[in-house]
């Protein structure tokens, strides 16, 4: 039973991280219908920025709490800046281009950013400083649920609630929903669509950066290549839940995380990624619009 609970929490932790990244995919897709391939790289840059900032601060002897806060803020700020810039440079000029053009541009951006970090930093795996301490009150259950698992779950939950509030109750959230529904109509009622799209990229990137910080301190090491697989997994999660739907992305991520965790725990750890992709293929075959996605009917 302990093993089951351990796997359950492992899966939920994994799922929450996927969710933080998947939200960026799903929001961007919902608004401009683009698979933002570079999103995994934005997440990687978030992890790297927090790594650099945290290490520098710890070398200069800052207290742990200050390091965590400053690293998280720096990661979010710089990731958002990258997301914003990538959108401006690589996607905005292509709004009216053929459907595949932005996708190729996104793949190019992803390759570019990966190699940029590789050249500017290093190709080695770097040890990530331990930002999340072992809490004393977690002691009795520490063999099943680690403190960092708990921190990840709580942080993700808080971020999700904040995001829901942002989209439901604020002006920019309303504008986002309007743009997602009908871009032309949104322009007609006075929504600045360009600004909404930028805001979407910024929010998505900040979420990914938080995810990057959390998972890097959970796993304990980072590398320039981590964005690729995480990006694909998160995208899988977004599609699983029905791309474009925000609750769908969270649900899809949790399902994916749990599937991976149980499959690796009970079957075999060699085929971890195979389980994820097989799940995706199966769900798409039997329910092509994803778990919570709306089936699109096209009128002629």
């Amino acid at each position, binding site marked *: 039973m302990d093993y089951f609970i351990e796997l359950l929490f492992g899966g939920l932790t994994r799922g929450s991280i996927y969710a933080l990244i998947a939200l960026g995919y799903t929001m961007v897709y919902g608004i401009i219908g683009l698979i933002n391939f570079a999103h995994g790289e934005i997440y990687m840059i978030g992890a790297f920025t927090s790594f650099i900032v945290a*290490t520098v601060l710890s070398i200069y002897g800052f207290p742990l709490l200050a390091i965590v806060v400053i690293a998280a803020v720096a990661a979010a700020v*710089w990731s958002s800046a990258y997301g914003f810039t990538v959108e401006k440079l690589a996607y905005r000029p292509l709004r009216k281009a053929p459907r595949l053009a932005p996708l190729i541009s996104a793949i190019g951006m992803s390759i570019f950013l990966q190699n940029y970090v590789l050249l500017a930093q290093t190709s080695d795996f770097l040890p990530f400083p331990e930002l999340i301490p072992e809490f004393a009150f977690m002691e009795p259950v520490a063999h099943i649920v680690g403190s960092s698992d708990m921190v990840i779950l709580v942080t993700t939950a808080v971020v999700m609630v904040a995001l829901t509030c942002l989209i439901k109750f604020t002006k920019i959230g309303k504008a986002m929903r309007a743009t997602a529904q009908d871009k032309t109509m949104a322009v007609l009622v006075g929504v600045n669509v360009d600004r909404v799209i930028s805001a979407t990229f910024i929010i998505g990137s900040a979420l990914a950066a938080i995810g990057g910080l959390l998972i890097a301190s959970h796993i304990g090491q980072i590398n320039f290549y981590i964005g690729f697989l995480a990006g694909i997994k998160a995208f899988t999660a977004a599609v699983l839940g029905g791309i474009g739907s925000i609750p769908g992305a969270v649900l899809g991520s949790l399902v994916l995380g749990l599937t991976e965790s149980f499959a690796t725990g009970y079957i075999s750890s060699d085929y971890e990624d195979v389980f994820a992709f097989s799940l995706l293929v199966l769900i798409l075959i039997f329910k092509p619009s994803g778990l919570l996605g709306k089936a699109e009917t096209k009128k002629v």
Partner: protein
Amino acid sequence: MFPVKELKRSALISLWFAFLTFPIMVIKVDPIERIVHWRWDNMFFIAFGSFVLSILAKVFMIQKERRASRKKRKIAAEPLIQRIAREPRFLYPLVVACFAFGVSFPFLFSTYQTNIMTTALMYVVLGLGLNIVVGVAGLLDLGYVAFYAVGAYSYALLNLNFDMGFWAVLPIGGLLAAFLGVILGFPVLRLRGDYLAIVTLGFGEIIRLVLENWNAFSQGPSGIANIPRPGFFGMEMTFAGGITYIYYIVLVLVVITIFVVNRLQNSRLGRAWLALREDEIACQAMGIDKTKTKLIAFSLGAFWAGFVGVLFAAKTTFVNPASFTFLESAIILSIVVLGGMGSIIGVIVGALILILLPEYLRALSEYRMLAFGAILVIMMVFKPEGIISNVRRSYKFKGTNTPEGEIHE
């Protein structure tokens, strides 16, 4: 000529980039020795570089606009390459010249060059195969490399276990890949475009991971070595001779592929693909079997990939799963898109540029992939239809006595 406002804008851009690249470019930490390196010189380079680049981009955009407005006044001139492609009296000598160059290549250049050219030609075939799927039929396939892997591994494994020769496996590899294409395509092809992309991507990764982990079947990540090169009626060949021989096999394959693809594009099936790409519903209303047509495109594309896979295994005499990553799929897709989707000449040019350029830029090998990514983005931003855009087949109506004169379509 250059307004002050633009200079100010460029200055702001360079400031932004200096800020943007600050943590990654300037700071480098050594977490074990606990030392921080501050590389302020990088910040200067970034700021200066982005300043210059932003001015250049602006100048380019101004010129492009000017050209566009000039074009509006007179009817847009047909691009040179398309005019050549239409006129048989230019086209045939050109094709013959290219072919002659292709045939004499191994005699003109060294073995090393021939080897590189062989690789490039293999990518031409791969690009043309994917062009059927993506360019003509409009199905975005991000896992094309899976079929390539199937071809390569079918040769490696059939040779290892049953001692089968290259020529026997060549069709088998293609057919196996095509068969896999049908099996994958059957459930998947009814999905919407973007879902199709991610499912094929997932499928490509599954194939690679299975090859990596199923040691009993594929010898895992260490791969299979000592695959024999193709034989020529049992003749012994030197190393250089073998490379030249493979070069010619690939060259013949390229010619066959171009011929087949060209014939296909203008056939009933090819027109059905184009129609399907433009509008599925209208296409079904015209009585085209959607699933069947898509499935044929998908499996034909896979067939070419399987073919080239067998050749790849024979050329390198070694296969391992690391050759079949997503990056490979991305490169092949880039060939198709960069060259111009649906255009055969475009794909050929695209493959030659994308494969040969990095080979000759090996001196800058560190920056190779960086430049590759940047080129993809720049290309898409400034010329999204590709280097050589596809000309839609049109019919001219001539030879009547109508007083209105020629009717162009």
